[in-house]
């Protein structure tokens, strides 16, 4: 057998050359880094993904900027019903005009806007008497019942960190729960699996938006959720309750595949316990699909927030809250004095008024850019991680 040994060990020393492709000759980098490089290479070849990354980076920059210095988005002074008198800028009754601080008031019924506002005057709606009037471009009216104006620019800036923060928190928590449940259910199988999966089915068969709404609608009545911070927590809780089943289902499907792999059995054969199997073997090999799903959801959730607000549902502690989705939603929802948006359109159609398009255009645009960039990135990731779909 000795020469057998010689014969066997000899080849390897020779084949090292071929076994190591020339690209990796010499000092090898850490293989994990090599893997990341590989993924990064495929990402880089995917233009859309790159676009997504760039936009995201910008947004994150904005968020950090917005966090670092406090941006004033205090409310302007209120309009009072008695202030509705004619003004020169637009000959529509009941309008008011505003002028930048420091300059002379053009008329007796014009209001001083705090410093930092653009001086140009653009039409908007004085909701206090539901008639048409004018207000600085870049201000946003909130609700028919509460005629206060907020700075749209400030809102946009602050919105970035809220949107990112809230969605990341929700997705992270949901994914964690889903991972646990899915792994348990997939690994142990049997009646545990059955039970958990039935529950998941139940949760998944309730339309998500409605589910979030009813959960929050009910929990909001509980006293613990009254203070500001708890309101945000409530929001996150509501979404997580609805969201974890998705991840649970994905993980479980993946685990069922991985569980059958031989290397799991090998670990079992060398005495590994259930915990080790799950943590060291099964979960590491079944998380990738989750990453993709998570990245998609991070983009989706702000949209849903917006939808909730649009449905006239007070998700947030104060009625106005600097989160793009809700900004856009609020403006669409209540930017017009008319009972419905269509009415406003119909009435404004013949130049009787100007639709305050900027009020939902800009938040909407931010929202859209954010979501689409996240999706670009997610899709790129999927292609880069999934060898089958590689180009």
């Amino acid at each position, binding site marked *: 057998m000795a020469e*057998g040994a010689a*014969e*066997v060990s*000899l*080849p*390897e020393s*020779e*084949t090292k*050359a*071929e*076994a190591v*492709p*020339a*690209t990796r000759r010499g000092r090898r980098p850490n293989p994990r880094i090599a893997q990341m490089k*590989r993924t990064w*290479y*495929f990402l880089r070849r995917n233009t859309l993904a790159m676009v997504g990354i760039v936009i995201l980076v910008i947004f994150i920059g904005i968020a950090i900027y917005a966090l670092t210095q406090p941006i004033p988005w205090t409310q302007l002074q209120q309009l009072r019903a008695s202030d509705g008198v004619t003004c020169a800028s637009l000959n529509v009754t009941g309008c008011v005009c505003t002028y930048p601080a420091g300059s002379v008031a053009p008329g007796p019924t014009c209001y001083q806007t705090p410093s930092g506002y653009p001086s140009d005057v653009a039409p908007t709606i004085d909701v206090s008497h539901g008639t048409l009037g004018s207000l600085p471009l870049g201000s946003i009216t909130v609700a028919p019942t509460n005629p206060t104006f907020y700075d749209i620019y400030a809102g946009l800036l602050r919105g970035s960190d809220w949107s990112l923060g809230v969605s990341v928190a929700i997705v992270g928590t949901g994914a964690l729960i889903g991972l646990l449940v899915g792994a348990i259910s997939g690994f142990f199988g049997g009646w545990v699996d059955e039970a958990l999966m039935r529950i998941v089915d139940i949760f998944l068969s309730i339309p998500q938006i409605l589910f979030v709404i009813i959960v929050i609608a009910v929990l909001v009545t509980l006293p613990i959720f009254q203070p500001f911070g708890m309101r945000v927590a409530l929001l996150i809780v509501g979404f997580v309750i609805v969201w974890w089943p998705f991840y649970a289902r994905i993980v479980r499907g993946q685990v069922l595949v991985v569980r059958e792999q031989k290397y799991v059995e090998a670990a079992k054969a060398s005495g590994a316990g259930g915990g080790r199997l799950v943590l060291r073997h099964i979960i590491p090999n079944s998380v990738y699909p989750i990453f993709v799903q998570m990245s998609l959801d991070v983009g989706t959730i702000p949209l849903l927030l917006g939808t909730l607000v649009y449905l006239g549902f007070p998700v947030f502690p104060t009625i106005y809250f600097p989160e793009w989705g809700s900004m856009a939603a609020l403006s669409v929802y209540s930017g017009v004095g008319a009972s419905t948006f269509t009415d406003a359109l119909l009435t404004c159609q013949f130049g009787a008024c100007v639709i305050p398009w900027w009020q939902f255009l800009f938040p909407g645009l931010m929202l859209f850019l954010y979501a689409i960039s996240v999706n670009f990135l997610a899709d790129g990731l999927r292609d880069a991680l999934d060898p089958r779909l*590689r*180009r």
Partner: protein
Amino acid sequence: MEAVSQPVLETPVLPAEVPLPSAAAAPVVEEPTGPTERNPVVLDVRDLKTYFFTYDGVVLALDGVSFKVRRGETLGLVGETGCGKSVTAFSVTRLIPDPPGRVISGKVLFRGIDLLWGLDAEARIRIDPKTGRAKVRRSFRRIKAGLERMSAVRGRGISMIFQEPTQAMNPVFSVSDQISEALILHQGTHIVDDILAATPGAPEVRPALEALVEVTRAAGGPDASRQAAAKVGEAAHLSSFGTQSFYLVRDSELGSEDMVRRLEKGLHRVRLSRLEKRYLRHRRRRMVVEEELHDLYLAEMREGRVDRHQRRVLRARRTRLRLAGFYYGVWGIRGRVQRPLRDEAFWRTVGRLEEVSIANPVQVARGYPHELSGGMLQRVMITMALAVEPTILIADEPTTALDVTIQAQILELMRGLKTRIGTAILLITHDLAVIAEVADRVCVMYAGQIVETAPARDLYQHPLHPYTQGLLASIPNLERPDKKLSSIPGSVPDLIHPPEGCRFHPRCPYAMPVCKEVRPPTTVEGSEHTVACHLYKGPVAME
């Protein structure tokens, strides 16, 4: 097409005269007399190069592969995994997944027709010198045209069977669907003609049926009733009619009196309604156009130029006919009008399945792939591949996924079929023993090149190339088990950075300095025995 009923023996010298055996081709009558020089070359692969463009770089999967296949012979292509056996097969039929793979250059002369014609126009390839990665700019229009051209050859000229029969069959269609698809595709016109010419109502059918029933009642054994059934077929001028009646009788209990009437009811389908007749004629017209198109494509490949006008004319006609076809769809009665054709194809399928010695062909034909065992499926695959006797059958590891006993069955079957219909077989496998069982000549491949080609006996008795020798030595041998297994050191090199010179030299026990620089030429050693190794100094082989 119908005119050509006999495949003519031809030489690759003047291919223009030689059309393909059309679907009409009757089975070749004369026994192929083994692979001798006399037999014409049906497949001539010259200096085939196929590359894969991947993240790590360009994989030189095939680097100048040349071989010939003669009519009625079995050529074995053997080598380790990753040596490019299957790639060769797919390059020949242009089934290489693209991206990432592409056939770069070379000729594949099938009966004198270059299947790779117009290839280099399909894509521009620029290889980045420093990363080693390639940019491939494809012209999709040309690629599409090329594939369409290939469809004139696939199936009828060259057909294939694959390694994993369970995955090579479409899971959602029944066996009969898949086989009869091939039948209709290649023999459609004849099937339609036969249906239209059939005379199920003829007076002599009834007595034949009665005879059949009688014979079966008398338990004359399967053969007797088979003959009787054949008589029925003749009477109705539709052989499948006989097959069907045979199984109807066999599967129905014989006690009942009105057997014959029930039989006639069962066979009633062939009495066509006017609508069905019209539909059949329509289908036939479409099939004819398809065949004309195929002939056109062959002509294009043969003459190496495109007849745009003719192509446009035919395609326009095809489109018109397809549109006209909606007429039958619009009424939502397609299923019904198609039934005669379907049934005919089904019973022909059953007939084919009988030929590959499947015990209960009707059930198998009705079954779905997931219901059948691997061996059974492989038989079905073979039936499908040989639905119209193709000139060449490429078998890619046909028995690797099967058990030993089943493998024995399949090999028997292939041998039998080969002698019955003189199809040339290109057998691809990693198992030298299997090759030894069936192949007449053997090509040994290593790292994308053919290192040795020889008649089977010759190869196994005195292999020349060190690789071949090592390979043969490393097979655990039932006869001499105690002899210690010798193995080839190392493993197959990765083909992105193949070794310079002779690709085998890192593993070669006789490696010489020259091996590291120069790629050895293919030299002729003995009759039909060529080898690519610096050890041998014979005359350099002609391409």
